[in-house]
């Protein structure tokens, strides 16, 4: 095997490989012999067919297979010999293979850049922590109580007022004819809740229990039911009972209705939940900070092929968004070229960070154990109640989906690893600032990198944020797409 490097431009490498005909021939004979053991040919017992004959009969069809195998084998050999780690699948082109002559092919690939992770201990990050004020817990409890609100019949009869709950029977008519869906009995209606047609509830204010009221309303023009929209209807309403709302008190009773021991336990669990929420936000910000820092610190060349692939993925998403008219206004206002430039920058950043993280993971032998994987899958399965089994099966069957689960786990582990090394200082902030800063903080770091236009910059930042915090479950589609990209990256770099 003869290998000559034709180009070495940045991360791009091109090789010309020549494999002597005898090598190919040898492989071919070997393969034919293997085949000859099982092949059936009239006039011969299996395994007794002479090689010469086999070659004549099957040579052509086997040749393709042999060449393919030789090429892949030799190309991997070239890569291992030269210690190259390809970023994407190498492009291989067979230059010439005349019968009986040497096989010659060219191989173009992009190598994973030499990454020297920075000294993480020099990283200075800030973790925002929040003391949860009691007032917040009270508020949360209040909200819970509100949801549990009950109403009780009036102790002393009085006309209905806003906020009351009236129990009514009603029959609706349009032009004297009843229409389907226009009648109900024992309907609990909270006045002022706006759950019925506008105007309906207002006309019941001031009525007494036992009253019969005729309510005349006009269905709004945009009413979902086309036949009723814009028509005037008269409702005969009988008010059976007026109930007044009773504010639920925050006490042990409330806690019990939630299945908890007493109020103290409830406070505890509410606090825990709030803490978890803030913890998630705080971690997200920390991670974001870290990624920003990493992106600023590392400026290695990124394989164009990978950027291209990542960009394609993003762009497809954008295109489909646009077709459905869901494109952000800001994006829509921009010209195609600007947009492309923006997203290309994003793609490059993602690839760079992805490479860096996987490199750090590789160097430090970080692995996702099967246990963790199973746990993640279980969590995923729980999201589809009733179909847990199916979900599990799905993951077991498709390694690709499994890899999708693995990618964020891996990323998280690497992040954790880096965070352990980095100097992380805690800073106490008000809850409000924590939530608020998340929309502003990153722009500082970003400014160094972001290329075109101030407006584009802000936009880009927001987008990147979304993409980087792949644990933010709010946006389903994007992190998933990202995870996939990660996976392919990883697969190729290993």
């Amino acid at each position, binding site marked *: 095997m003869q290998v000559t490097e034709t180009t070495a431009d940045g991360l791009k490498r091109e090789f010309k490989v020549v494999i002597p005909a005898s090598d190919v021939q040898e492989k071919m004979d070997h393969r034919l012999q293997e085949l000859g053991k099982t092949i059936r040919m009239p*006039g*011969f*017992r299996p395994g*007794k067919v*002479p090689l010469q*004959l086999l070659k*004549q009969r099957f040579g052509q069809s086997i040749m393709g297979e042999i060449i393919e195998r030789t090429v892949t084998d030799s190309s991997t050999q070239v890569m291992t010999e030269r210690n190259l780690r390809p970023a994407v699948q190498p492009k291989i082109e067979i230059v010439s293979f005349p019968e009986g002559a040497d096989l010659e092919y060219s191989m173009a690939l992009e190598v994973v850049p030499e990454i020297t992770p920075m000294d993480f201990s020099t990283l200075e990050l800030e973790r925002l922590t929040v003391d949860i004020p009691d007032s917040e817990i009270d508020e949360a409890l209040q909200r819970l109580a509100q949801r549990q609100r009950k109403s009780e019949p009036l102790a002393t009869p009085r006309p209905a007022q806003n906020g009351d709950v009236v129990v009514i029977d009603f029959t609706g008519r349009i032009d004297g004819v009843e229409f389907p869906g226009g009648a109900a009995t024992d309907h609990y209606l909270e006045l002022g809740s706006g759950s019925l047609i506008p105007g309906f509830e207002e006309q019941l204010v001031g009525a007494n229990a036992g009253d019969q009221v005729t309510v005349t309303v006009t269905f709004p023009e945009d009413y979902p039911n086309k036949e009723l929209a814009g028509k005037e209807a008269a409702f005969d309403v009988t008010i059976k009972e007026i109930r007044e709302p009773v504010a639920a008190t925050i006490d042990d009773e409330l806690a019990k209705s939630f299945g908890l021991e007493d109020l103290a336990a409830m406070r505890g669990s509410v606090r825990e939940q709030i803490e978890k929420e803030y913890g998630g936000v705080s971690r997200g910000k920390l991670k974001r900070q870290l990624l920003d820092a990493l992106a600023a610190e590392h400026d290695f060349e990124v394989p164009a092929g990978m950027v291209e692939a990542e960009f394609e993925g993003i762009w497809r998403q954008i295109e489909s968004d646009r077709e459905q008219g869901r494109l952000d206004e800001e994006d829509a206002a921009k010209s195609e070229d600007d947009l492309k430039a923006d997203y290309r920058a994003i793609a490059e950043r993602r690839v760079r960070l992805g490479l860096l993280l996987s490199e750090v993971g590789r160097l430090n032998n970080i692995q996702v154990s099967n246990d963790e994987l199973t746990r993640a899958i279980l969590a995923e399965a729980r999201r589809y109640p009733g179909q847990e089994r199916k979900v599990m099966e799905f993951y077991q069957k498709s390694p690709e989906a499994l890899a999708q689960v693995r990618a964020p786990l891996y990323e998280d582990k690497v992040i954790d690893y880096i965070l352990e090394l980095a100097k992380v200082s805690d800073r106490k902030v008000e809850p409000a600032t924590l939530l608020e800063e998340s929309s502003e903080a990153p722009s500082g770091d970003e400014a160094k990198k972001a290329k075109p236009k101030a407006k584009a910059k802000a936009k880009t930042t927001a987008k990147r944020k979304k993409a980087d915090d792949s644990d933010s479950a709010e946006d389903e589609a994007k992190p998933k797409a990202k995870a996939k990209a990660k996976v392919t990256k990883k697969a190729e770099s290993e």
Partner: protein
Amino acid sequence: MSSGARPKSQPVKLSQGRMYDIIRAPVVTEKSTMGSEHNQVTFRVPLDATKPEIKAAVEGVFKVKVKAVNTLRQDGKVKRFRGRPGRRPDYKKAMVTLAEGNSIDVTTGV
């Protein structure tokens, strides 16, 4: 027996068409490949082909020198088809030994 009466040295004249008629097909089997080690090739020939004819035909078609020809008649097997006895046709095989330095690639066809 009448062919045996013919003097050995007298060459047989064959038309081009008859030559191609005589060489019906190569026999490609384990046994026939064994013969190829001794510079022998095997053909199926018509039942009425004689050794001198075969020699002339092989020499004419493949442009080689033939040293000897051995022939055999193979009786067709008796087979039953739907319970009725039938018989596969008989055929004649000719093992042709080529003179040194000559060869025929039987699998490539004429």
